[in-house]
């Protein structure tokens, strides 16, 4: 487990800073009263509640303590989101899982809510607070659902390289360049060899 933890890498580079607009702060006050914006720290923190239902699955009402670090924004434009109460770590522990299996990147509870090449699809106009909050809620619904029913409400991506392989298989045209870049392949033959090798490794 420790070796795995040490192996954890958060690949995004924290470069940008997000400053909330007045309308975003108003949105937060009216729609998510238990979340507060700390102007000095430039952090959104507090309780994120949700009452969600995915497709025909069961609805879940739940809440998590979260922190959205607007000073640490990836080059893809998304801030770091943490679950600060250690609940997901605890769920993983209780179910005998490595915490990465519940999509947190480190023991600080940093959530891995999306595969980087998917960010552009989810946020076509760049960072939008309401889209991010709904996205986090849906991610936490996934965790709560798994906690409650011991099954995943929808498919996750595999960890690390497997996730990228799955993404490539999902839509070769759309994601080929992102996947190629991820594997650091300089030529098409090298990329083809890499994909072949991974498909054999993961038998997909």
């Amino acid at each position, binding site marked *: 487990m420790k070796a*795995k933890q040490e*192996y*954890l*890498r*958060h*690949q995004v580079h924290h470069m940008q800073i997000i400053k909330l607009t007045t309308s975003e702060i108003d949105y937060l006050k009216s729609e998510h009263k238990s979340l507060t914006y700390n102007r000095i720290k430039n952090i959104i923190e507090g309780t994120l509640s*949700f*009452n*969600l*239902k*995915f*497709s025909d699955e*069961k*609805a*879940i*009402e739940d809440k998590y303590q979260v922190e959205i670090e607007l000073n640490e924004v990836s080059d893809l434009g998304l801030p770091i989101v943490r679950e600060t109460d250690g609940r997901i770590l605890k769920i993983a522990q209780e179910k005998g899982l490595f915490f*990465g*299996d519940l*999509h*947190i*990147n480190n023991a600080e509870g940093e959530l*891995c*809510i*999306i*595969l980087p090449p*998917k960010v552009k699809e*989810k946020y076509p106009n760049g960072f939008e607070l309401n889209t991010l909050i*709904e*996205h986090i809620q*849906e*991610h936490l*619904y*996934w965790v709560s659902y798994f906690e409650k029913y011991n099954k995943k409400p*929808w*498919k*996750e*991506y595999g*960890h*690390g390289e497997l*996730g990228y392989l799955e993404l490539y298989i999902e839509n070769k045209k759309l994601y080929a360049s992102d996947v190629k870049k991820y594997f650091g392949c300089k030529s098409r033959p090298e990329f083809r060899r890499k994909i072949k090798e991974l498909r054999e490794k993961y038998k997909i």
Partner: protein
Amino acid sequence: MEKQFIKFSENIRLTESQETDAKTKYTGICKTLHKSYYDNKYDGKTKFLFGSYKTKTNTRPLSQDQDVDVLFRIPEETYKKFKDYKGNGPSALLQEIKDVLNETYTTTDEIKGWGKIVLIKFSENKHNIEVLPAFELENKTFIIPNSGNGGSWDGFDPRAQIETFQSSNDKTNSLTVDLTRMMKTWVKNTPSLDYKSYELLNNIMDFLDENYKKGSDYSKYHLVIKDCFECLKAICDYSTDSHLTTALDRAKKAVDFIADNKPKEASLEWRKIFGNEFPSVTENPTNESKARVFTTPSSPYANY
């Protein structure tokens, strides 16, 4: 918790076969007595059912002490014969009743508030019958034998009790019978509590007359029960105070849980009061109607 209260009400109500079993037993006994005291064919008119089997306030599961109270109308000459008896006439009448029944049944004496009655025990100890011989007066009240203290003949008016009950039950749209069964279930589930059935019934009728004159529907039964415990606590004596305090506290908690949409926790409180006949709720509902439905989520990923 409307559904749970409907189910609870069903769970504690006697089944049709249990009612039939009781009826078969008391009819058989009255038929046997009728045959000995009358020449005509038995048509049920010499039998008068009273108590909880008449008011249908008896509860399930059946316990050994849930007896059927039935009164057998004796002919005038029998009454006169024992009234003019030189010794303890009431005792002699009861003995004669026992002798008649002993040919077919196992009988024993049982002391009641109105003196001795004859108890007919059945093998499985369910629906034992308490039979009380009585002479009916023109005013529709009865004279019953009291064998205690040398013997006396007492007046007895079960019709008045039944009419009071039925009037309350009609006015409250059957809440009286429902609430009485539920409260009796609480008494049953509280072994150290001694709360006489007739006293409980009278208190419930008074409570309903003051607070729920027109009854209530199942969706508000939780409030009715809480209010009832509050009322009983206000009038109770020292011996029942602690039991009522406990029950009231639990009922208040359950009401609060219901308000918070936590029927699971509420059902646990009701089960502490009423026992396992109250249905348990295993899961709290989510507010599905208010849930935001989403269909195209992002798939979680982990980067290691």
